[in-house]
């Protein structure tokens, strides 16, 4: 079975890779491009640990085929900081202790950024529902929600 | 004499149902020896895999812990990690 050649953009950089037709985008990111920040917690779209942006939409990378990335733009956790400068969410997650084991953290950050990119003033309920597809087993979500609220407040103040 | 409370099963099997015994010992190893000489087999039975509470403090792997004249010693299952 011949592999497919895919040309895509990942975190703003042109990237190419070879993949099986039925390989997921998550496996291609991790195994072909070495971007292991996106995690596989379930492989069925139920945990959100593999959250990435595909052409500006938040998706589970385990539920997209790698071949679908052809000609499209993918953003992952590895592209969230601008060089040395952390995204406000990355900083507030650290300040608010919004992670314990850290396995779900990349997915939460990518998902939370997608929320703040469209709404800088979400209510607690909106944050909780937006992030309902991201499972965290350690924190009970409290500090994650607070970190998102804090980042939003800071970004509102900057805006 | 330190007061020693045996586990129910050990008391039944090796001490004729006697649950509490008094033992003269300065440390845990001596205590175990004393128990073994009074109830043959008890030393082996209590050597591994049991924890002991001496005056309220639990020791998972007791060996030379000091026993006082008025100490209370309880045998317990080892506490597992979660």
């Amino acid at each position, binding site marked *: 079975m011949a592999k497919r050649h895919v040309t895509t953009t990942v975190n703003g950089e042109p990237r190419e890779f070879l993949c099986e037709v039925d390989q997921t985008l998550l496996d291609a990111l*991790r195994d072909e491009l070495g971007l*292991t*920040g*996106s*995690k*596989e*917690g379930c*492989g*069925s779209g*139920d*945990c959100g640990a593999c959250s990435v942006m595909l052409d500006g939409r938040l998706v589970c990378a385990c539920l997209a085929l790698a071949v679908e990335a052809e000609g499209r733009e993918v953003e992952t956790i590895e592209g969230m*900081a601008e060089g040395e400068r952390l995204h406000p969410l*990355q900083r507030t*997650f*650290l300040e*608010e*202790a919004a*992670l*314990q*084991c*850290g*396995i779900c*953290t990349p997915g939460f*950050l990518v998902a939370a950024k997608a929320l703040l990119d469209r709404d800088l003033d979400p209510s*607690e309920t909106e*944050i*909780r*529902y937006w*992030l*309902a597809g*991201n499972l*965290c*087993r350690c*924190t*009970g*979500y*409290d*500090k994650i*929600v607070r970190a998102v609220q804090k980042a939003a407040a800071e970004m509102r103040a900057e805006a | 004499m330190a007061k020693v409370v045996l586990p*129910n*099963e050990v008391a039944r*099997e090796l001490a004729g149902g006697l649950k509490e015994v008094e033992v003269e010992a300065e440390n845990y190893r001596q205590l175990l020896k004393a128990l073994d000489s009074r109830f043959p087999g008890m030393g082996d039975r209590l050597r*591994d*895999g049991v924890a002991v*509470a001496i*005056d*309220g403090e*639990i*020791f*998972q*792997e007791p060996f030379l812990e000091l026993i006082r004249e008025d100490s*209370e010693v*309880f045998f*317990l*299952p*080892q*506490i*597992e*990690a*979660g």
Partner: protein
Amino acid sequence: MSDSASRFKWVGTRPVRPDGLDKVTGRANFGADFTMPGMLVGRIVRSPHAHARIAGIDASAALAVPGVKAVVTAEDFPEIPDGELMVGEGPMNFRDLSCNVMARDKALYDGHAVAAVAATSRAAAEEAVDRIRVDYEVLPHVVDVLEAMEPDAPLLHETMFTEGVEPKPERPSNVASRCEFTLGDLDSGFAAADVVVEGEYVTEAVHQGYIEPHAAVASVGEDGQCTVWCSSQGQFMVRAYCAKLLGMENSQIRVTPSEIGGGFGGKTTIYVEPVALALSRKAGRPVKIVMDRDEVFRATGPTSSAHVKVRVGATRDGKITAGDAELRFQAGAFSGSHVQLGCMCGFAPYDIDNVRTVGYDVVVNRPKCAAYRAPGAPMAAFGVESALDDLAEKLGMDPLELRLANAAREGTKAAYGPKFREIGYAETVEAALSHEHYRAKLGPNQGRGVASGFWFNIGGQTSAALHINEDGTAVVVDPNPDIGGSRASMAIMAAEVLGIDYDRVRPIVPDTSSVPYSDMTGGSRVTFSVGMAVVEAGQKVIEELRNRAAKIWDVDPDGVVWENGEARPASSNVGEFEPLSLTALAESSAKTGGPISGQATINARGVGPGFGTHVCDVEVDPETGGVTVLRYTAVQDVGRAIHPSYVEGQLQGGAVQGIGWALNEEYVYSEAGTLENPGFLDYRVPVASDLPMIDTVLVEVPNPRHPYGVRGVGEVPIVPPLAAVANAIYHACGTRMNHLPASPPRLLAALDAAKLPEAAD
């Protein structure tokens, strides 16, 4: 909150964790993130049957698949005699462990590993898995704990004769053991009671639900030297267990811990690690095995389902005179449920003269149970704390006042025997009573529940080292996988003892060859025990630093003190010297005797037990049985919080796991004994929108036998929620949920059976 601020520079502060940056940028390496050149993909063949004799395994078709390099079965693992061996931190039956890792003769549950393959790609490995022919002779099965105890139940192990009963049974059974704990005289205790309540309480099996599946990479060299890179709660445990299962010596195996994506007790044992080693040994190449989520649910560490009977008696004025409980815990396919610990924990918060608890450890055709946060305690507490809620109602007492009136205190004889030393249980009840939450108004269909919980906490064998770098910065070598921020706590304690800045201390978690043995991360032992070792190592470093300063000043070491991170003359009698900073001493270390380092190896003593009290408000939808958690407050005696944010996080996370256990999480088995819900879709852990903020109150009753007053904090918070939620449901709708989870179908059926709350009143 405490006096920490005034007495300590770092203890009690909330700095950013040292490993944080890697975790928010995606750089941190977890179990599945490691690769080696030439690595093969390993996959495991699993039994589709709950109980079956394995008549034969034919791997020839699998080996013919292009790219397949090795197949292993139980024959590739040495047969280990039955019986327990002391390894590391406790007794372990390695025959059971081996048979759980790879079925020998019989498959004992749906998902039980029966063979494994290694191939050059996942596709080839999966193709090979499909082509392995296993000849199963399907046997009758049993998955329910009470059914398994019946005399005519399908028997899992012909060699299992119940331990702990006299006379010794003549016939084998599924009851591995019976245990009993007694205090005082139960009959006279109940005779003295004016009021007696009793009930039967059932909980379903739940999974730890860590988000990271088990993963390991193993490489076996031609000389028999092995390396393993994996996610676990203890690299030394992995090394010792793998060595035993493969007939190796510990020195042959080097285990490097990855970052660990959650464990909660579920990663205190091994599954894929020895299989990867066996495959690598056979294939001559590194092998990586990463479980899929369904494998995690079908074949790894759930906790017991449990059946608990409780009877409690009290006088009219609310003094509990007797407590009696019988616990039947399902252990999975091999003995070893945590029923003994459940027996000890249920009544532990209370001062009761007459107590009896009896436990049964029962095997069934389900995956072998693993520890889960305060193993055994939540099910026991669900029974006792529900019964106490009934008791309070019968007595017309506030449920927290009832608990306070009977609270165990320093000197109280614990229900499991010994006297408590310094504890802070009553303080947690008082804090809950005085919390604004406890007085907040409730609306229709809303109710408030309270419950308490206890956990022993443990110490254990521990090592740590503190290396002073040439520039005066420091490395803390912390031998325990960091599951929830412990590196931050170690850096805080190291900075505190050395008197230097937190940012100048860098903690690392090393492999098994780089630091002496340490027990696992678990049982709420790490901050306590490793912290103690770090402090001791720090004191050794300080002693050395004083020696070095004494050499430089040409004075007696006794004339040098260490204060605020500097060596100073103890008094003006010693002489007039400018203080020497750690940096200065480190930079001159070549002249004064070489590198500066301290190491401590201890068996940590002086553990302080933990208690918590939770308050929960729920609303019940009487037409659908849906339950909404409106508000939740977790109060706990934490000794002293080294990094309060991560202590709060333990309380919040534990509470939410308990809420999941109470409301929607459960293992569902089909008639055929196969697991119906091996995924996060139908195994329903709480999601963010299910929950309110989880308020925490950190009560600090310091543990006087720890240099900074630490008690373990991680286990206790999962103990109270089951009953706190069930009690809240009862007060919302008048229906007592004796069977958890109180999932909507189960709750609606109970509501309908009670003919709506109005009729029940």
